[in-house]
């Protein structure tokens, strides 16, 4: 066990992957000498050479298409998209190629491509640097989409993603990049890539969160305890497929569901989760699942992002609503 930031945990995960498998190659803008704008690849080009850790020309479609060709040739490319907003130029190659080659070729050609995308807001950034594009990926058959909420998962997931024979998009919650945690680099028998995890057990409400908002959800659960409310927090971890079995088990226990994400509400992951859980748990649900999400507006200017992003108060307000209680909000603020 070592204490690491999420950045450090990703870096060490990449290092292990490069060490373990010669076919792993990293590709991205500024990932070489600079070590990436977030330093996730710090030192890797120095240690593995520019042939394994490649600075790419400034062209995201190019990187993604190159990864297809590299995978065709037997490599395991790991593409870094510098910020969430810059994944859109690569979406065509991701959706029409990376996600489909295995299906298209009847299983003859695998696409073990990992796409790393630092995502989410809350860092006071300019446009296109704070987005949550996961719904676009999750609606795309053939892609696995996962996201980590702590350094250990970051480390485990990047290694699992690279080892996976299917394409995996790993969404890295950039505002949690510098949060520290214990990391065991000896993975042992890790939770599979597609599985959710109950991070706080509870009995009154299930609160499903992922990526940057898992911490917020835990805080909400803690705060709710003082009020005698027991929130079960589920870290989804996998966004495609969603681990509905774990979620169903939780909702069967609590009878209530709140889902939260930073992405815009309409057509977001929350809709899929609410719809799927209603399909499975209609008989036990005591209230309609609620979604606490970014609003249906483009990601706004930094000085109002706190109002766009779900926070502890908005989570608790939703919990109150599914509990059918009068709002305890003003109380929370006052305490």
């Amino acid at each position, binding site marked *: 066990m070592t204490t690491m930031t999420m950045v450090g945990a990703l870096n060490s995960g990449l290092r292990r992957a490069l060490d373990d498998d010669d076919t792993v190659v990293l590709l991205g803008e500024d990932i070489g000498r600079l070590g990436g704008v977030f330093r996730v690849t710090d030192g890797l080009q120095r240690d593995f050479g520019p042939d394994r850790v490649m600075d790419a020309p400034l062209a995201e*479609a190019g990187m993604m298409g190159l990864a297809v*060709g590299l995978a065709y040739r037997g*490599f395991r490319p790991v593409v870094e998209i510098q910020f969430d907003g810059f994944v859109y130029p690569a979406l065509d190659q991701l959706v029409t190629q990376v996600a489909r080659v295995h299906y298209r070729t*009847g299983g003859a050609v695998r696409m073990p491509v990992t796409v790393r995308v630092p995502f989410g807001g809350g860092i006071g950034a300019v446009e296109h640097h704070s987005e949550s594009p996961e719904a676009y990926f999750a609606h795309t058959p053939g892609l696995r989409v996962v996201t980590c909420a702590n350094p250990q998962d970051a480390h485990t997931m990047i290694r699992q993603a690279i080892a996976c024979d*299917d394409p995996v998009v790993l969404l890295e919650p950039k505002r949690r990049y510098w949060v520290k945690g214990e990391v065991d680099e000896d993975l042992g028998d890790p939770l599979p890539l597609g599985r959710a995890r109950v991070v706080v057990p509870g009995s009154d409400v299930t609160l499903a969160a992922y990526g940057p908002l898992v911490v917020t959800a835990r805080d909400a659960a803690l705060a709710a305890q003082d009020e005698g409310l027991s929130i079960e927090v589920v870290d989804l971890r996998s966004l495609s497929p969603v*681990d509905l079995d774990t979620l169903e088990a939780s909702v069967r226990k609590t009878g209530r569901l709140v889902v939260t994400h930073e992405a815009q509400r309409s057509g977001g992951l929350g809709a899929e989760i609410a719809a799927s859980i209603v399909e499975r748990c209609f008989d036990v649900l005591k209230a309609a699942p609620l979604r606490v999400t970014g609003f249906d507006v483009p990601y706004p200017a930094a000085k109002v992002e706190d109002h766009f992003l779900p926070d502890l108060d908005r989570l608790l307000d939703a919990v109150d609503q599914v509990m059918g209680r009068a709002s305890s909000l003003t109380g929370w603020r006052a305490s």
Partner: protein
Amino acid sequence: MLRSDVSPGRARSSKTPSSKTPSSPPPRADDPVQLVTPDGVRREEPAYDAVVADVDDERLTALYEDMVVVRRFDTEAVALQRQGQLGLWPPLLGQEAAQVGSARALRADDFVFTSYRENAVAYCRGARPVDLVRVWRGTALTGWDPRSIGMATPQVMVGAQSLHATGYAVGCAKAGTDSVAIAYFGDGATSKGDVHEAMVFAASLAAPVIFFCQNNQWAISEPVGLQAQRPVADRAPGMGIPSMRVDGNDVLAVMAATRIALDRARRGDGPTFIEAVTYRMGPHTTSDDPTRYVDPPDAARWAAKDPIARVERLLRARGAWSDERAREITATADAFAAEMREGCYGLPDPDPMSLFDHVFVESSPTLERQRSEHAAYLAMFTGGER
């Protein structure tokens, strides 16, 4: 066996006499390079002649045979489509030399990424007759296992494959082999950002890749002049990628250019761009109606430059023509076409449940649930219970 006659990588054409090959392509003249005129006259172009010195009458006849075969099955496929056996077919009529001349220059361990129109290339790589029609009949999304013939599934997204070829080539270099990747695309594709980005990466990484553009003058109804104000081959040099512009209806010129490019790539000298100037003699696909936009005299002018006729003329002029061999070739072509037709008829519709296969290497619970629900649903029709 028919197969052996048309298998890829035959010694006769895969050999590149590298000692004579220049390490950069010859300087470009304004007109496309031509070694065989439409009248069947052999023109001298020393830099190109050198690399096809081994193509004697016998080998030239083999190339002739390839072109006759591909034209024959192409015609057959159009007929199959007209009869409702295929959903669609993109004819390659007129582009036989461009495809055969380049594909026959490749080694078996090279890798090919094409668009949808390169059925002659697939044939040269060793695709079986029935493999050529699967996708167009709609029974599968691929006609063959890409690894078995060194050629990817035809790409429908215009230009996308240029990046795949570049990535593959980068991989070849990383692996330390001297295999080469080649990307086939059309004149229309040169407008796409993907093709540009592929060239940027290829130049930056000195990738052993060939950009092979068949400028067949049309992107569906759009003339090449809408995409490009200068020859498309002119775009590459400004990016540090040498280019050649050849008569795409001249199988020998195409082969020579491809060999020059291959040799550069194998030596580690990086990418080359080839523009093969040719003409799409048929419709864009069997769904297209070219009478809406093609000028008949224009088409007639190009018909006079037929890629097959000129080789016959050359062989005749050289006294290397044999009517008997010609009959054999026709028979080979007919047999290939017949095998394609029968294969087509024989293609079974896929099992409905195969829908769910190969989305992932390891399937997902969500998908498996859908699979079993659909299986239960289908079972209702056959009297099963759910």
